[in-house]
C-alpha cells in the first residue's frame, strides 16, 4: 500500500499476486477458467451465436456514443460498459421470458437486452425523469446506485416468485466492490436460508473505482464466498460470452427447479474510466489495460464466429449500419424530448399527492412562471 502510483505493476507477470492481500494488482489471468472451443458449439443455435455478437457490438457502439455525448455536454456523469459486453450479453441472454433482472449503473447493456428502451437509457444519463420509466411487461428493476443495496431487493423479488409459485428466476448483477458491503452478505444469506430462485452475477472487473480486488478481499476468488452461505459459487471467463451464457443458463435452470441460488463470478475488465468523472491512469497502468485488450470480448468472439463460418464482412457492415441507425433514433428521441417540466418533480412520489405537496407544487408553478416571465 505504500507504493506510489508510478510504482504500480507494469507487467502482467507482476500482477499475479491476487492471493496476497497486500498486493496492488489485478487477477492473474492464468486463473481464468474455460477455453474457447474451436468447433461450432452444439448447445447453442447459430442464430443465437450471431445474436450474442450483434448485441455485444451494439452495446459497444452504444457505449462509445454515450461517451461522446457526455464529452459534448449532452449527458451527465456516465458509467461506461466497454470491456464487459460479454458479461452483460451472456447473462441477460441466458434469462428466460419473465425472469427478473436487477442491474447496477454499469449494466445498461443487460437492461436493454431485457427490454429497457435504448432511448430511456439515454434519457436517464441525460438527467431526465423520463429515463426512469419502465415499460409495462419489462421485469427490470431501476438501476442501483448505492453499491450492493439492490441485492436484498433481488432476494425479495425471488422470494415473491417462490411464494407465488411463479416460474421466474431473478438475476442480480453487481461488481467486485459490492462484495464488501453488508447488503451483499445479508442478501446471500437470505438466498441460502430461504433457497431462493436467483443468480448472483458478479462482474469482477478487477477494480472498485481505484481499489483493486486484491485489496477488497483477502480471498483468492469471489466465487468461493458462496460457500459461506451454503450454496455454490463458480468463476467464469467474463470475456467469453459463451462461457457466461452457459454458466448463467445452468444456474437459472437449477434455480427454476427449486435447487436454490448460485453465485457466478465473471472475470472481466472495464477498458474505460470508472465513470466520466474518473481518471484511471491514477491507479492502473497502460500495460495492464493493453494486456486485457488483447482478449477483447467483442473482437475475439467475432473472430470465432468467422472461424465457424457464421459471420462475414457483409454481415458486419450491415449490422454496423443497423446499429448506427438505432442509435441515431435513440439520440433523436432524447434530443427531441420537450424540455423537462419542473412540476414533474412531484410526480410519482406518492400514489396520491398529499395536501402539503399539492401546495408546494402550486408554489413551484408560480415560481416558474415568475422566473420565466422575469417577474419578481
Amino acid at each position, binding site marked *: 500500500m505504500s507504493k506510489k502510483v508510478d510504482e504500480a505493476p507494469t507487467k502482467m507477470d507482476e500482477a499475479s499476486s491476487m492471493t496476497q492481500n497486500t498486493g496492488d494488482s489485478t487477477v492473474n489471468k492464468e486463473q481464468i477458467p474455460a477455453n474457447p472451443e474451436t468447433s461450432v458449439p452444439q448447445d447453442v443455435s447459430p442464430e443465437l451465436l450471431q445474436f450474442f455478437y450483434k448485441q455485444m457490438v451494439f452495446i459497444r457502439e452504444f457505449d462509445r456514443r454515450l461517451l461522446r455525448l457526455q464529452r459534448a455536454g449532452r449527458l451527465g456523469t456516465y458509467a461506461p460498459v466497454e470491456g464487459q459486453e460479454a458479461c452483460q450479453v451472456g447473462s441477460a441472454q441466458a434469462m428466460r421470458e419473465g425472469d427478473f433482472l436487477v442491474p447496477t449503473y454499469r449494466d445498461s447493456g443487460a437492461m436493454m437486452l431485457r427490454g429497457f428502451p435504448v432511448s430511456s437509457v439515454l434519457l436517464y444519463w441525460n438527467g431526465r425523469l423520463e429515463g426512469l420509466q*419502465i415499460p409495462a411487461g419489462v421485469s427490470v*428493476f*431501476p438501476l442501483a446506485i448505492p453499491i450492493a443495496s439492490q441485492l436484498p431487493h433481488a432476494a*425479495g423479488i425471488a422470494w415473491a416468485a417462490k411464494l407465488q409459485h411463479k416460474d421466474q428466476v431473478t438475476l442480480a448483477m453487481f461488481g467486485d466492490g459490492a462484495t464488501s458491503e453488508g447488503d451483499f452478505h445479508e442478501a446471500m444469506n437470505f438466498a441460502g436460508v430461504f433457497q431462493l430462485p436467483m443468480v448472483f452475477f458478479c462482474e469482477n472487473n478487477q477494480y472498485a473505482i481505484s481499489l483493486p480486488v486484491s485489496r477488497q478481499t483477502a480471498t483468492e476468488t469471489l466465487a468461493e464466498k458462496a460457500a459461506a452461505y451454503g450454496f455454490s459459487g463458480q468463476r467464469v471467463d467474463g470475456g467469453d460470452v459463451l462461457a457466461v451464457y452457459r454458466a448463467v443458463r445452468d444456474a437459472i435452470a437449477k434455480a427454476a427447479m427449486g435447487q436454490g441460488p448460485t453465485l457466478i463470478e465473471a472475470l472481466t475488465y472495464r477498458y474505460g474510466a470508472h465513470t466520466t468523472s474518473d481518471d484511471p491512469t491514477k491507479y492502473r497502468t497502460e500495460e495492464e489495460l493493453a494486456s486485457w485488450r488483447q482478449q477483447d470480448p467483442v473482437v475475439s468472439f467475432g473472430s470465432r464466429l468467422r472461424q465457424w463460418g457464421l459471420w462475414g464482412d457483409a454481415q458486419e457492415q450491415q449490422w454496423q449500419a443497423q446499429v448506427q441507425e438505432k442509435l441515431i433514433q435513440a439520440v433523436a428521441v432524447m434530443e427531441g424530448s420537450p424540455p423537462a417540466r419542473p412540476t414533474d418533480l412531484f410526480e410519482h412520489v*406518492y400514489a396520491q399527492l398529499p395536501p402539503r405537496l399539492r401546495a408546494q407544487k402550486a408554489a413551484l408553478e408560480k415560481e416558474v412562471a415568475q422566473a420565466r416571465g422575469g417577474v419578481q
Partner: protein
Amino acid sequence: MSQLTLVQAVQDALRCALDADNRVILLGEDVGRNGGVFRATEGLQERFGADRVVDTPLSESGILGASVGLAANGMRPVPEIQFLGFIYPGFQQVVAHIARMRWRSQGHYGLPMVVRAPFGGRIRAPELHSESTEAYFIHTPGLTVVAPSNPYDAKGLLLASIEFPDPVIFLEPMRIYRAFRTEVPEAYYTVPLGKAELVKVGEDVTVVTWGTLVRETLEVVHQLERDKGWSIELLDLRTLSPWDEEAVFNSVHKTGRVVVVQEATLQLGLAAEIAARVGEECLLDLEAPVTRVASWDVPPPLFQLEDWHAPTAQRIVNGIERVMIY
C-alpha cells in the same frame, strides 16, 4: 366487539389483513414460532402457516431490502423491526429505497408495505430499546409515518396502512401496548391516514401530541382544567407525515395558543416542524410562542433516569402554563 389492549389490537389487525388479502406476508425476527417479542404476532404462524408469517435471519437490512423486492413483485409485506432502534442497520433501505422506489420507477414499482416497529421508552428496557426517532422518517420524502395512541386506532390505522399503496412506517407505542383496553370491533375496519383526532375540545389552548403521550397528556389536561379552569383542546396527530395541518391550524385559529408534546428529543423533533408551520400560517393568531415539550437533547439513558428524560407531567404542565400566562 371485545376489549383489547393495543398490542392485541395490532395482532387482531394483522390477523384481519392476513385473512383479507393473501398477498400480505409478515416477516421479521422472532415473529413466527415465538409470536414476536411483544406477542404482536402471537398465534399467526400457526394459523396462516410459515410461508406467510416468516422468521427471518437477524438481518434488518435484509428484512427491509427483501420487503422492497417482495412488494415490487406482487406481495404486501409487513416487516417487523423488533425495536425502532434496530432499524438503523437497515436505514439505507428505508430512506434510499423504500421511500423512493415508486418515484425511481416513475410509478412502475409502488411499494405497498408497512414497516412495523415499537417505539418510545419508559418500559425499563436496555439501551437502544427506547428510541423516539420518528423525525428521521418524517424528514424523508416518500414515506408516510403513522403512530396510534389507543387500541381502536391501532387496528384501524394498521389496516389502512396495509391497504395503502405506498410504504408506511408504523410506529407502535410500546409503553402502552398493555396499559389499557378499549372496545375494538372484531371486523375489518380502517381509520383514515392523514387525519388527526380531536381528543378533547377546548377554547384557550391547543395541545398537540401523538402516541404514548396522548393519554398522559390528557390526564394533565384534565387536571389543569380542574385546577385552573382553563379550557384545553387536545389533538392526537395519529399520522405524523403527512400530518394534519388543517386540524392544527383550525384549532390554533380558535385558541391562539399551542403546545406540542413529544417524546423525541427536542432539536428537530416533529414539534419543530409544527412550530414552524404554525408560525408561518397562524402568526397573527398567536398570543404566545408555540411551545415545545420534549425529551432533552441527550441520548435516552439507562432506565433509572428515563422518566426524567421524557416529558414529565410537570414539564407538560410547565409548557401549558407558559403559553397561558405569557
